[in-house]
């Protein structure tokens, strides 16, 4: 299990997801149909791209709440640039969006690293800076005049079922690419190990020669890159660019990523956890929707789930359970 990256948190999430899946399949006729499941995946893709980006920052010991607003800025800039040069294609769009996003991420890293300001404070500031400037210069006007390639739906897998057509769109491809890239960065490069080291113990990492500056720019730049790509994908999904469409999304993503076992304070978190956390939240909302529960109750229920998850998964409770299990367990944790 360990070798597959399935830790205790991931195991719990899988169990809860399976239980929920079985329950929803029994109580609703629509949950376990291919169109619904594919839609669930398509709709979660943008959040998963945000999520793996945020995971890198959390592992490195930081936090960022400006990324969703940054993605809106990127959407707007990319759409304007594409309009200005007259068209473009997916490759150019991705380069532009990724580039703008990474630049905004490095802007955050600059203040955090050069002036040693706490990342939550910097990103609260840049959140308002980005959003205020975006709304000011765009006057809150949405862009509908997007290039054709961006608004055309592209289905990668298309299945005809009794319940209608089920499509897996290009969103899922982008999501898998981002997940794979982040996995490579975190698990297969020494840079990834250095990010974990910095998040776990910044002073210790500095003393063994980790370049803290480079790691800061990498982590926040990576989140910016992912946010840029997610922004472009969201524009593709919605077929329009609305300046405040992603406003508030950062909290949903942050909550889901933390539900997946990433720790604020750094050094811990896995890609699988992010996937499970985000899909679990999406599944909950989907299930509540299918069960006909008022959408006003969604946030409340998601909030309760996350609060309970934090309480159960935290170290304090872990220690408590450890002491119930007896001394050998404690010795092992001590080592």
């Amino acid at each position, binding site marked *: 299990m360990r070798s597959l990256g399935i830790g205790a948190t991931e195991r719990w999430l899988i169990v809860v997801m399976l239980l929920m899946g079985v329950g929803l399949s029994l109580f609703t006729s629509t949950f376990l149909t291919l169109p619904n499941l594919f839609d669930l995946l398509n709709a979660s893709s943008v959040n998963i791209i945000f999520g793996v980006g945020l995971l890198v920052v959390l592992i490195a010991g930081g936090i960022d709440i400006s990324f969703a607003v940054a993605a809106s800025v990127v959407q707007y800039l990319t759409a304007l640039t594409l309009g200005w040069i007259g068209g473009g294609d997916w490759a150019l769009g991705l380069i532009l969006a990724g580039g703008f996003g990474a630049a905004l991420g490095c802007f955050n890293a600059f203040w955090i690293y050069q002036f040693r300001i706490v990342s939550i404070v910097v990103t609260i500031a840049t959140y308002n800076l980005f959003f205020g400037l975006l709304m000011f210069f765009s006057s809150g006007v949405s862009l509908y005049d997007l290039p054709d390639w961006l608004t055309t739906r592209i289905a990668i897998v298309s299945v005809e079922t009794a319940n209608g057509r089920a499509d897996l769109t290009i969103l899922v491809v982008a999501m898998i690419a981002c997940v794979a890239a982040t996995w490579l960065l975190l698990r297969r490069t020494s840079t990834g190990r250095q990010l974990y080291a910095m998040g776990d113990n910044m002073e210790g990492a500095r003393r063994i020669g980790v370049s803290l500056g480079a790691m800061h720019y990498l982590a926040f730049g990576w989140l910016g890159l992912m946010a840029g790509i997610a922004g472009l994908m969201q524009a593709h999904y919605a077929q329009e660019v609305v300046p405040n469409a992603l406003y508030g999304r950062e909290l949903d993503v942050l909550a889901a990523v933390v539900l997946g076992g990433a720790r604020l304070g750094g050094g811990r978190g896995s890609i699988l956890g992010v996937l499970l956390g985000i899909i679990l939240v999406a599944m909950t909302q989907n299930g509540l929707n299918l069960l006909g529960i008022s959408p006003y109750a969604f*946030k409340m229920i998601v909030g309760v789930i996350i609060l309970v998850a934090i309480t159960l998964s935290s170290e304090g409770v872990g220690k408590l359970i450890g002491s119930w299990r007896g001394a050998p367990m404690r010795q092992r944790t001590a080592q």
Partner: protein
Amino acid sequence: MTIQALSRDEARGLSRLADPEIIGLLALLLFVCIVFGAASGKFLSATTFTSIAFQLPELGLLTLAMLMPIISGGFNLAITFTANLSGLAMAAVLHAFGGVDAGPLAILLGIVAALATGSAVGWLMGAIIATTGAHPILVSLSMMIFVRGLGEFLTRGGDISGTPDAVQAIGQGTVLGVPAPMIVFAGAVLLWYVVMSRTRLGFATRMIGSNLEATRYSGLPTRRSLTMIYTLSGFMCGLAGIVMLARFNSVRVGHGEAYVLITVLACFLGGVDPFGGFGRVLPVAIALVILQVIASGLNLLGANQHLATALWGGFLLLIMVVRSIWASRFLQHMFGKR
């Protein structure tokens, strides 16, 4: 680390002696007033300052709610929504007892309900943080999602309006020429000042912010203190909720959402250490006045609302950079090298 801690102590000792912090903030306040006075002829008038006095308390009470968690090394992102929920509780009680015609007893009950709601939310948050050791940003964030969801669920996204005149007097009336909300705020500042500088809890708050584990090992009840810190923070949110309800004669979930940034700004402008452990109530109160003057000034000059939001963000960065540069200069001066 020891050097850093030492220098911080030195800095505190020095600032106590001459208190350049308060003098500096007052000078900044004067400067801001002069700038806006020069920019707009209408600024330096009784009307402006009366409106500032009416607007300040809302923001001020929320800032006080943010202050204690920050000094304890934490954060409370749920302040505005806790205030909304408390206002909602009070509005619900008033409505149950006849809405606009509710009697004094109902009003009292409503106030108690609001304060109890705020304290309960804070207590729950504090209890989770204290017993599980989960990060306060995280706990308050999920609490915020929950409280916002609960509020939206209860109101279906709408607002509840209509309160008795006596309640509106809390938000809009004056006592001997002083705006009533200002009196509430002054009382709250005094309460926080006493709690932070004269009680064990205040001492424990600063110690927890400096080093939680060391505080626990020296025998202070850290769990109880943490729970208490967030309960008090929630209590203050409840008070803010009452003032907001009274000022606008209505309550809507999401009102004042943007205040979180400005409360953080006020704390850090007022010299609170972003890593926790250090911070005083009076400088923060002066910082608040500065920010409210800037806000009203921008408003009077007709600045675009979104541009103002961006300015607040830029201003927060500026303050943090100045603090960071000042701190490193100070260290260089103290020890010759960094």
